[in-house]
């Protein structure tokens, strides 16, 4: 992605801190602004706080301090704000969290019908077209336990996208996918980005980061070490830590 559309800030994160068990500092004074339509890729070593950051963005984790504003709405302890934001923010979890008692299609339909108040037929047509895009339309009637890892991950992606969110949070959204499939998912994501969707992707695959990212953020120990365009971060990293990390990459 090259066209950067830095016109309007949609996510504003200011000085957030998150500590687990009073000692594990997962996020330290973390701040970032994300523009509408931007694709942000977050990379960094295991345990550096990437997932925690994503989870804070729709308050699955509560920050200890700092503020988060999404689309002009403050993310605080007011239920209305929270539901409003969550409607617009989709998330794909690192371990998928599919609903095991529902079929693939029901997984994708559920929130559309309940939250977006779509009719069942309408929801099904949205779901089926997304399942088609990620290539598991033939598994629509299967249950999650009958799917392979990659198939589950694709269902999770389709389920989140079916809500037509403005912002998508991907936590290692392609880790269980083969390169072929990654290509197809990438295609979907590119399309979404063109349609103005904002995306925050945690990824370990540098190729992926390079391919889709408008901006790459390198995190370590709960803070941003370096950020910039993929070219800048991958090819001319400024910090020692970044250089060291990237040197390990195959």
């Amino acid at each position, binding site marked *: 992605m090259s066209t950067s559309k830095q016109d309007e800030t949609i996510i504003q994160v200011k000085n957030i801190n998150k500590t687990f068990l009073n000692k594990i500092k997962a996020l330290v004074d973390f701040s970032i602004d994300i523009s509408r339509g931007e694709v942000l890729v977050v990379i960094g070593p295991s345990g550096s706080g990437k997932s925690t950051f994503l989870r804070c963005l729709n308050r699955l984790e509560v920050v200890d301090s700092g503020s988060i504003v999404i689309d002009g709405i403050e993310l605080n302890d007011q239920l209305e704000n929270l539901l409003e934001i969550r409607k617009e923010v989709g998330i794909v979890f690192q371990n998928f*969290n599919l609903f*095991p*008692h529902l079929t693939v299609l029901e997984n994708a339909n559920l929130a559309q019908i309940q*939250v977006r108040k779509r009719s069942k037929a309408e929801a099904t047509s949205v779901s089926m077209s997304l399942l088609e895009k990620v290539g598991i339309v033939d598994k629509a009637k299967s249950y999650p*336990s009958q799917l392979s890892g990659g198939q589950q991950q694709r269902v999770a992606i389709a389920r989140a996208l079916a809500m037509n969110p403005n912002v998508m949070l991907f936590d290692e959204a392609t880790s269980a996918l083969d390169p072929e499939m990654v290509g197809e998912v990438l295609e979907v994501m590119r399309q979404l980005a063109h349609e103005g969707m904002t995306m925050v992707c945690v990824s370990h695959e540098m190729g992926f980061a390079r391919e889709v990212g408008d901006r790459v953020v390198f995190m370590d120990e709960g803070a941003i070490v370096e950020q910039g365009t993929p070219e800048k971060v991958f090819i001319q990293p400024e910090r020692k830590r970044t250089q060291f990390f990237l040197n390990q990459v195959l």
Partner: protein
Amino acid sequence: MIYMDNVKGNSLIKIPWFNLAVFFLITILAYWIDLRGTGFAHLFAPITGVGDAVGGLDRLLLGAAIGIAVVADMHAILILSKRYQVVLIWIELLIIFLSFFYSFGLDYGFIQKKIGFMITQGAVTTLYISAISISIAFVLALIGAIAKLSSNTFAIAIANFYTSFFRGLPLLVQVYLLYLGLPQMGWVIDAIPAGVIALSLCYGAYMTEIFRAGITSIDRGQWEAARGLALNNFQTMRLIILPQAMRVIIPPTGNQFIAMLKDSSLVSVLGVWELMFLARTQGQTQFKHFEMLITAALIYWVLSMGLEMIQSRIERKFKKVH
């Protein structure tokens, strides 16, 4: 279902010494408890050629006959398909039970005379009191469990008190308190409503704990996924958590329903003519109370088996795939 290891255990029954061991064990056991005089002697009379006669040989003969029968039976059962195996074993256990029973020398004519009324009046009353009570209890339990798991201190404290109080006091006392206590405040309540209220409150308290266990058994990830999709609390509970929790909730709830069938007999102290009440009154008059008790017991059992069948059907529905 226990996740099976896809291993056939060495089928014990094909090993000769196992069969021999079973035979001797059963024979000695049957000899020791001396089954002459029970229904077994009659069952095996055609083979052993003895009735209730006395003599050590008879006793041994009967024991051995039973031993052989058991071993033969095991082999016979294994020929059948799995489904019929279960049915057959059930029938056999039932026969054994009835054979023991036989030795009580009950007055079957008396039972026959009374059983009609016990079903039409007693069992029907029992069943409908139980059904109403368990339905109300179900709702109370749901509210109780959610209150206990909430973060509202008032809700937690009240729910805690509720479960402690209504589980702690004997049901009988609750029935008394309602029946005798409410009129003190100007509300004279009838026997059946008092019974239903007491049963509902008490079982609601027990089932609160069951629901609580069920809800907590669901993985945190399921809550997160539901939140991530902007479902509200009520939707999350109804569509995501409870359907999954049902697997854990149903078996102990079945327990409660079956137990309630029998606990509902406590309202008989208020003079309600339910099953146990009839069993006691009908029997005592003519000193046939053991007969009546057994009759009531069998009716209860039949009702329970009905519930068990319904339960296993519901379970199958909630189990499905995962």
